[in-house]
């Protein structure tokens, strides 16, 4: 009996030891400087990516082969992660998270210098590249996105034409009227929410900025009330609510299917979806696979005009950064620079190039013709917005609140839209006060 007691105590004590976590003591503020002589850069670097599809079809290997022509002594390996955010987040508690990686959304901006090596000062990089403020901490830049995206509606041109709509709607009310026309005159589902996937609904947050053509829209999220009358998010959310309430969406949103929605949109069974420029390629591919015309896939801006012009925001996709613990920082930096400047990644994805002054992709030709104004929303207060978002548990980047909004609109949840917005406003502004800067 006595022996057992002692044993239990020893075991208990042993259990408490790992209670102290082994984090902390990381190196901070390292730089990944651009190599001057490509022939001298050596090493094998591992690049973490979400594009498992591009690993499988060999596209990334082709980029790597192209890269090694310029940097013959660098070998590039890729590691595709399907559940990127969750896996990388856990790996970032160690030093082993690749040499080049996409900066996960979960990392606090102020922690960037602890995890990533700097790519240079913002002052210098902003001359050449877009989106630098998304990763700037204390004047230094920690990541660079290889392409930019613009949110908008993917729509089936044929169906919209069949419904008799030839001009892009300019107000939310017109948009609803057009969807009603689609419902009346065609067999297509006017709007597909992709409710079950979730992230498709959180995409509605990117309405922010385009409603009032305001490059300072993020500051307004940080300091103002996003659901005040006329505020961008409220305009977007109201449109979503009204579409659902008017029955202009799929019959059973809870079992919607993202993969299936692509060919269905291409074939004209679905008329419209709120996504981003990045999706165009995927929908065109789906059209080719389904044997229908890929040119039917169109793209239109949010139905709001400022001074009779549409506005479209451009924001970066995942930013690539260099692991601060990497043994081959020069090679890693070389890859990021080459991938951003020289590879055809942005063009191949019909995306907006991160290089200032580069031409727009062809799919956005209608935008140019219609005189859509592109704005880059200033992200200086982005970290603050995220902090308020997390602390308040509103989740403007998470699906729950819009799923609740859709449930409310279709009557699966009690309450009024007014009360719903009021609750969001209250939680958000109260947290602003306590969380502060």
């Amino acid at each position, binding site marked *: 009996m006595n022996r057992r007691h002692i044993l239990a105590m020893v075991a208990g004590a*042993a259990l408490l030891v*790992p209670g102290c976590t082994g984090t902390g003591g990381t190196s901070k503020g390292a730089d990944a400087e651009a190599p001057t002589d490509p022939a001298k850069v050596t090493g094998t670097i591992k690049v973490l990516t979400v594009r498992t599809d591009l690993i499988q079809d060999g596209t990334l290997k082709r980029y790597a082969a192209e890269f090694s022509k310029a940097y013959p002594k660098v070998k590039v390996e890729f590691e595709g992660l399907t559940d990127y955010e969750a896996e990388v*987040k856990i790996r970032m508690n160690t030093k082993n998270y690749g040499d080049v990686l996409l900066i996960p959304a979960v*990392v606090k901006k102020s922690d960037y210098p602890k995890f990533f090596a700097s790519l240079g000062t913002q002052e210098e990089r902003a001359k050449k590249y877009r989106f630098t403020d998304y990763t700037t901490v204390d004047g230094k830049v920690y990541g660079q996105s290889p392409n930019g995206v613009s949110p908008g509606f993917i729509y089936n041109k044929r169906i919209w034409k069949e419904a008799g709509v030839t001009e892009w709607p300019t107000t939310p009310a017109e948009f609803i009227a057009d969807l009603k026309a689609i419902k009346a005159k065609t067999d297509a589902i006017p709007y597909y929410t992709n409710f079950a996937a979730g992230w498709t609904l959180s995409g509605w947050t990117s309405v922010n900025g385009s409603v009032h053509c305001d490059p300072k829209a993020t500051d307004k999220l940080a300091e103002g009330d996003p659901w005040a009358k006329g505020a961008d998010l409220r305009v977007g959310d109201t449109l979503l609510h009204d579409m659902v309430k008017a029955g202009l969406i799929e*019959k*059973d949103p809870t*079992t919607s299917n993202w993969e299936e929605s692509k060919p269905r949109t291409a074939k004209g069974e679905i008329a419209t979806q709120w996504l981003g420029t990045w999706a165009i390629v995927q929908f065109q591919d789906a059209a080719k696979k389904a044997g229908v015309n890929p040119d039917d896939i169109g793209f239109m801006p949010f139905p709001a005009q400022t001074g009779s012009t549409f506005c479209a925001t451009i924001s970066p996709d995942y930013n690539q950064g260099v692991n601060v613990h990497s043994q081959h920082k020069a090679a890693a930096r070389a890859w990021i620079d080459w991938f951003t400047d020289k590879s055809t990644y942005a063009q191949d994805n019909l995306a907006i190039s991160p290089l200032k002054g580069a031409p727009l992709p062809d799919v956005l030709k209608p935008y140019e013709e219609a005189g859509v104004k592109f704005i880059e929303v200033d992200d200086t207060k982005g970290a603050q917005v995220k902090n308020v978002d997390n602390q308040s548990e509103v*989740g403007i980047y998470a699906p729950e609140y819009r799923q609740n909004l859709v449930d409310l609109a279709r009557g*699966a*949840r009690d309450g009024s839209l007014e009360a719903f917005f009021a609750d969001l406003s209250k939680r958000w502004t109260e947290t602003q006060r306590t969380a502060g800067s």
Partner: protein
Amino acid sequence: MTDTTEKAAVKTTTGAASTAPSPAPAPRGTRVWRGVTPWLFLIAPLALLITFTYAPVANMLAYSLTDWDGVSPELRYIGAENYAEIFTREDLFRVFFVSGYYLVASAVQIVAALYFATILSFNVRFRNFFKGVLFFPYLINGVAIGFVFLYFFQDGGTLDSVLNLFGVESDRAWLGTPVSANTSLAGVSVWRYLGLNFVLFLGAIQSIPGELYEAAELDGANRWHQFRHIIAPGIKPVLTLTVILSISGSLSVFEVPYIMTGGATGTETFVIQTVNLAFRFGKTGLASAAAVVLLLIILLVTWIQRRLVPDDKVDLV
């Protein structure tokens, strides 16, 4: 049960000692060796148990006292603040109402499992086939089940087509409203775990000696009497165990609703909420505290159950 095994163990050792001629006590070295041997065998399982069960739990306890966000290398000790937050925010406990659906489902599940186990313990045609059919769902991975049932409940999916075959024109979104969604999800969970309960019951029923049934039949007992007076008391320990497992399972439902609805439309359970806190809002500290609270609630519920239904010995003969 432990009592009898201990006694049995004592009997065998004394038996062995009496048959084998045991001369002088073994030398000191051998005795020490003998004392250490069982522990040597235990090294591997204990190491695994400590590394993968107790160390993470200890870690979780430690995290629950911090404001860690899950990634940042810096974490601040904030004492019991997280616990204070959990107990002062009633919205965090509202999700336990969803467990009610799963509790009701567990009751249905236990009754059904008991029914099938009783029937299949008698001589029935194709009895092994039916046993297989009933146990099969338990072997399927939970994630796969989630996806299969998403198609099942889809608009115009399997369920609707089957209902159509029987002439029932169903035009409803099965996962559309909180009540129907939770009922559907609880149904899936019954489908999945019925097999486990069934096997536990079947095993217990088959350990009841066959003579008892024969004797009962001679005395004129019908099947219901046999169930009421032989089977039910005979499997009582297993029955209590199953009830405990079901209740703790209902409080910590996770994979089926997480995969199928992600907690939308009022199907959020306490564990889904905890996962969201940790991974969506970067509140790993608070989420750890929530996990500890859930653990304590389950321990408490189990303890109360054990007090209410003491584990008395089964004595049929």
